[in-house]
């Protein structure tokens, strides 16, 4: 039962992330919302799998998947946002500040 609740929480977070992927105005905000929500949602699903199987073979496999997912998702998001800035993606017109512009030049 606890496994079902955790998986439902994960799916709800994933829904938030995908709404953010559609609604937000520019690439940086989309990446930010989607990465956070989808990563934590999938981690929640994996914790649900671990609770469902107990601490056996499959449970430990799900437990190992969680840190791998965290590291890879955050680092991929960082590399992608840096690459997009160097590519020349414009920020939204509501942006108020850009300190990085001097550092690049």
């Amino acid at each position, binding site marked *: 039962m606890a496994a079902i609740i955790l998986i439902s929480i994960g799916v709800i977070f994933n829904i938030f992330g995908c709404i953010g992927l559609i609604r937000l105005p520019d690439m940086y905000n989309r990446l930010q*919302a989607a990465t956070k929500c989808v990563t934590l949602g999938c981690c929640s699903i994996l914790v649900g799998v671990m609770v469902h199987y107990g601490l056996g*073979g499959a449970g430990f496999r799900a437990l190992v998947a969680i840190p791998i997912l965290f590291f890879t998702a955050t680092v991929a998001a960082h590399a992608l946002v840096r690459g997009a800035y160097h590519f020349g993606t414009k920020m939204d017109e*509501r942006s108020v500040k850009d300190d990085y512009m001097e550092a690049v030049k």
Partner: protein
Amino acid sequence: MRYVTIFILSLVFWLLITFKFTVPDIAAGAVASAITAAIFGRYYFHNVYKFLQPRRWFWFVVYLVTFIWACIKANFDVAYRVLHPAMPIRPGIVKVKTTLRSDFAKTLLANSITMTPGTITVDIIGDDIYIHWIYIRSEDPAQYTSMVTGRFEEYIKKFAE
């Protein structure tokens, strides 16, 4: 030293994902860990002995709890911004100075910043971390530095420096 570290880490990883403790399984894991250590050993960290002190483990647990709490808060923050009809966003890139020295600690700080509410790390040059923030709450550098890095910096300094 670093070869021994990666050997032990790989063997633990192998035992966790197979979770069978017969002799052929452990032997195969040991051989595979030896191959991994031989190939990837020279790219690994060398000052891992610091993690043998129990004081660092205590601060690591404190950091982990804070980090998970920040993750959950980040998700409700994103949900609020996404579901609000007017979409309260005020994005921008800010520069934050860090006092951490080692590269691994900086990496951990950057990863924590990526998962905390509304921020994502863009680049790291020397001591400066450039952060894209979805809602800039203040213009004062000292104030937003403490807002972004929060308590992560002191915890990381205690267990990873």
